[in-house]
């Protein structure tokens, strides 16, 4: 197990190195620079700026400098926001995205699994159809439309929640719902189909024959097995949801990390692009690793590779 994890960590470092390198060169290859605007900066001032940010040095020195500062977890000053470093942006933005992400994950997992189970237990009855109509809607309606619809009905018409922004717990409800819609629907469908499969298995019939109650069968025997595909899906989902969604953060005016991910590219804010990309990559790689490890605990049938030979 330990060997497996250390091996995986090594691979992670290698992928990270590749990501940093690719981003660095792709970014420099894009036309335009951080100081281009319709009001061109006089050449003398641009020279000063380039000197300050080290952009006048040859690319290989910039590249090596960059690798060193990434290793030190120091991403440098932001080009776009004077007086703030990229570390500040991440430190301020990530907790917000994380909180919002956790809230939507909580909604997605609890509502999704519940809906899936209800649908499966009432196979081909109205509850099943109802839940699946909801799921199809959740998957096919894009999140920005979902967000506007929620704003219109729950905020403007009913006045239950504020339209946008990030101030109190009440403010977090609408964006969390909008962000959770698609994963909820997805999890509901996953749970339903794997639940149906599990329910048709022999050991469920045995349990029924033993005279166990329906609730006991569902909770004790069915759910634990049915939940595996959901766990698989959770890895990439949590990485994606925790780093923030650009669309949701924009519509609701949330100061999270997701907006930096997109706007830094339009701004050619080199240091922010790199910092946010590295941060996101680490999060993604880690969450995939965690899911793989979690597998082993949930389903003893799955063995982690690299443990023993010749099975």
């Amino acid at each position, binding site marked *: 197990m330990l060997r497996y994890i250390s091996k995986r960590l090594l691979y992670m470092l290698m992928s990270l190195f590749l990501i940093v390198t690719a981003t660095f060169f792709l970014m420099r290859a*894009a*036309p*335009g*620079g951080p*100081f*281009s*605007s*319709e*009001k*061109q*900066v*006089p*050449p*003398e*001032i641009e020279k*000063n*700026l380039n000197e*300050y940010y080290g952009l006048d040095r040859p690319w290989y020195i910039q590249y090596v400098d960059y690798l060193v500062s990434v290793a030190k977890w120091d991403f440098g000053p932001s080009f*776009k*926001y*004077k*007086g*703030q470093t990229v570390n*500040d*942006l991440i430190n*301020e*933005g990530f*907790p917000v995205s994380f*909180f919002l992400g*956790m*809230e939507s994950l*909580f909604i997605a997992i*609890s509502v999704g699994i519940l809906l899936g189970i209800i649908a499966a237990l009432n196979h081909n009855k109205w509850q099943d159809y109802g839940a699946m109509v909801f799921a199809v809607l959740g998957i096919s309606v894009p999140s920005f439309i979902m967000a*506007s619809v929620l*704003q*219109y009905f729950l*905020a*403007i018409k009913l*006045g239950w929640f*504020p*339209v*946008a*922004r990030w*101030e*109190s*717990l*009440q*403010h977090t409800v609408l964006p969390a719902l909008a962000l959770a819609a698609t994963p909820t629907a997805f999890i509901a469908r996953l749970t339903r189909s794997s639940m149906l499969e599990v329910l048709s298995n022999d050991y469920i019939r045995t349990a029924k024959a033993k005279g166990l109650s329906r*609730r006991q069968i569902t*909770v*004790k025997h069915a759910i634990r097995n049915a939940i595996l595909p959901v766990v698989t899906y959770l890895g990439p989902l949590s990485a994606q949801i925790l780093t923030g969604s650009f669309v949701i953060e*924009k*519509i*609701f*005016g949330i*100061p999270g990390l997701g*907006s930096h991910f997109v706007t830094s590219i*339009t*701004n*050619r804010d080199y240091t922010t692009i790199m910092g946010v990309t590295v941060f996101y990559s680490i999060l993604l790689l880690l969450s995939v690793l965690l899911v793989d490890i979690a597998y082993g605990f949930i389903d003893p049938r799955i063995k982690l590779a690299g443990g023993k030979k010749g099975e």
Partner: protein
Amino acid sequence: MKKRSFMLLSFMLALSLFLSACGGFQKGNESAGEKGNKAADVPQELHVNIKTEPFSLNPGLANDSVSANVLYQTFEGLTRIKDGKPQLAMAESYEVSKDLKTYTFKLRDAKWSNGDPVTAQDFEYAWKWALDPKNQSQYAYQLYYVKNGQAFNEGKAKAEDVGVKAIDDKTLQVTLENPTPYFLELTAFYTYFPVNSKIAQKNPKWYANAGPDYTSNGPFKMTSWEHNNKIVLEKNENYWDAKNVKLTKIDMVMVNDNNTELSMFNNGELDWAGMPTGQLPTDSLPQLKKEGKLHIQPIASVYMFKFNTEKAPLNNVNIRKALAYAIDRKAIVENVTKGEQIPAMAVVPPTMFPENKKGYFKDNDVKKAKEYLQKGLQELGLKDVKDLPPITLSYNTDDAHAKIAQAVQDMWKKNLGIEVKLENAEWAVYIEKLHSGDYQIGRMGWSGDFNDPINFLELFRDKKGGNNDTNWENPQYKQLLIDSQKETDPEKRKELLKQAEAILMDEMPIAPVYFYTNTWVQKDNLKGVEVSGLGDVQFKWAYFE
């Protein structure tokens, strides 16, 4: 049963963990509730949207409208613009030398928000700091009017040579390069604001956050700055004119979505939606106008197409004229942009030259355009317009620009028979292409930094350097602008500038399309907000009735 309660318990545990992890929320303070009340007890708290995080709230570094919209509330220069005219602000009085090159300002007894007196040294320090090349101010060139400002910024002169000097605590002497008739407009601009030199010298990062070191000398002081989220301004009791400031608090939130902004306004979460701090969705404009809620104000800003005059066939003046004359500007303004913009047949906005509402030629003059086209084709040695290779029209990726480009493409095809290809690129790529001359026709918006036509004409003075992009240069035009810099009589100067504009509109290195307007909605009982012709906003005199 046991298992179920366990699951429930773990869910609850997880939830309470999230909640406790983020206990740092502030209570939303809803000022709604007591709406119907009468004058005296109306809360004087304003909620506006500024869209994004400002670039910098150090006046010497700011170079964008978001920062400007905050700085105009918190700081104050020697003068302040009211009703389009500069009035004395930090300066109590001033004297000008005969050659209009030396200004001596007497400062009034004013204080910084922490109680320190505002001194002439604070001005000297701030201007020299912005000009100092090691501080990389991208707007340092706004101070090039001051003697040796440019030389110091380029490392060719020393700080002592710069023409700004504190004679004593309350007297500031400014020497200029040229007689600059609009200098009192400039001193209201944010790059000319003072900075509390006592603090700035001790803490070079004073401007990064709100706090005891962030002091300002304007009607409001910044009490909180949550980056990318919200700025809170409160009335500055130390402001010299505090008795005329009625707002007690301004919440500036950062929501970068036009539809959300309007929804927030409709829901009472904002008192103002739209320009100059935010923006309304274009689709909502006709409806808001019909309901009589829309406020419209022309501003000093022009939308134009630049011609690359070194690329055939745009090197031919008659072809350029044909293209410029064959645009139906009225149709664009009414059907595409919908914000009551003013069709532009000139380059200097009517807020500066009122007679430019009419302009130098007729809008949508297809007959003339066809004549110019024929003449141009002849000069190029072409028999028919079909022999003309397709022209590429470029714009930066944006829904509104795309719609305008399509309309113009259609007009040129229909009116002149010219084939036009459209091309769009993301902003940073696009601007690079324009600056390097890698385009045929490209859109551009241009707005004035201060209230003077030179803002718009200077653009095309030099072929290289600056923001010309058209590769056009004209010795006579250039001379007129140089002469205007030295002319001390305002009427004569205006005449020179008009002559220059006439040359520009005859040579047509650009085709102006429309003059921008600011459109917004505001609470009915909000009064006294000052939106200038340049599109800046000042809340100093604002109040709720």
